């Protein structure tokens, strides 16, 4: 990931440009910054004990990730990777915590971004727990289609499986069934 420049205005923002596939943050690393997506798309995911990836969100411009330091957590819980060429702002957590109580506009942005992330996580939880795989897949694709950051990202079946709590093989079968369904059938 390429560090571009430091913005001297508080809180000192570091703008970072990441190529497609670049890892922006790593779970269990020290949580020193909160990140804001400026352009591009970012996938936020965690690793299950089995090693499988579970995708929590695909984020676009205006959305935040890496909020662990705002909650007083010493390390990140998640990984984040750029799905395409992406620019993020890294906001130093200590300066952000000092600036937030004086900056209502920044607070509005953070509350709205966290509210959207929470609504998305709640919808994903409902899908994974209560819907059949085909419906989960269709909901996930609709969210990606309507999501921020330009054209929907091209996710592998493995990554789609991690987004809907299913196995890759099951996603491949469900995707094939959708493709094979004649137009106008259902």
């Amino acid at each position, binding site marked *: 990931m390429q560090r571009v420049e430091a913005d001297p205005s508080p809180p000192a923002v570091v703008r970072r440009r990441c190529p497609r596939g670049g890892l922006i943050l790593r779970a269990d690393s020290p949580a020193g910054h909160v990140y804001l997506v400026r352009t591009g798309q970012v996938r936020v995911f*965690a690793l*299950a*004990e*089995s090693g*499988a990836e*579970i995708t*929590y969100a695909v984020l676009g411009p205006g959305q935040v990730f890496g*909020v*662990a330091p*705002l*909650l*007083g*957590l010493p390390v990140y*819980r*998640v990984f984040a990777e750029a799905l395409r060429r992406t620019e993020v702002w890294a906001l130093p957590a200590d300066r952000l915590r000092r600036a*937030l*109580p*004086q*900056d*209502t506009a920044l*607070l*509005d942005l*953070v*509350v*709205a971004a*966290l*509210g*959207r*992330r*929470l*609504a*998305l*996580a*709640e*919808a*994903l*939880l*409902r899908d*994974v*727990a*209560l*819907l059949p795989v085909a419906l989960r897949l269709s909901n996930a694709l609709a969210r990606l289609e*309507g999501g921020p950051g330009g054209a929907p990202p091209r996710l592998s079946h493995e990554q789609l499986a991690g987004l809907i*709590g299913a196995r890759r093989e099951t996603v491949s079968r469900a995707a094939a069934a959708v493709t094979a369904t004649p137009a106008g059938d259902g």
Partner: protein
Amino acid sequence: MAPTAEKLWYLRQVDVFHGLSDEEVEEMGPMMEPRTFRPGELMVGPGTPPQRIYCVKRGHVRLFHRGPDGRELTAGVVGRGSLLGVSALFGPAQEGFLFAAAGTEVLVCVGDGWAFLRAISRWPRVMLNLAVQLGGQLVATELQLNRVAWGDARTRLAAALYGLAREAGDEVVGGGWRIRAALTHAALAQQIGTTRETVTRLLAGLEAAGFVRRDGRRIVVVDPQGLAAAFGLLEDA
């Protein structure tokens, strides 16, 4: 206590309002109306007014998802001081919403969600409290998502008991936390997405391992830290 004074007293107990002066809390009074729900009554669901904010003044509220086949998954149980309905303001309408039902008799202050957000945006301390609360809920929801997708039923049960003890439990003399609500095995099964028989078997295992014990119809989490460590749960920061 006069009704208005009582309402303001309760508003002061809401977590996100910590740090506000009495005068500032009083400004919130006119936009929030008291409302009582009977045990089991649906507070948020199809047919209830959308985009409302609920400040829980008394009792316990069960938050849950409901699938098209009627199955339910409990997302959490919250009590006095909690604020409900914020995420629904930001989610697309077609995504549906988190249901809420009264677990006991519940007293809330309820108001229009966007008017509430406009009002509190004047107070950075309250917005900061709300941001931290939303962030905490986000972490909890993602952890539950991870467990539902990939965790085994034993881990999901341990996480549910730990969460209930932490959020809706009382400290027990001699150690541990007693979950206030008397939970049936069927209710726990609904919460973690398994069968009642599985919960009965797994609960006996957790009891034998010394993580929990029964106290009448209630469950005591004897060693919350030990439980969290054994199952890789996120402890309070």
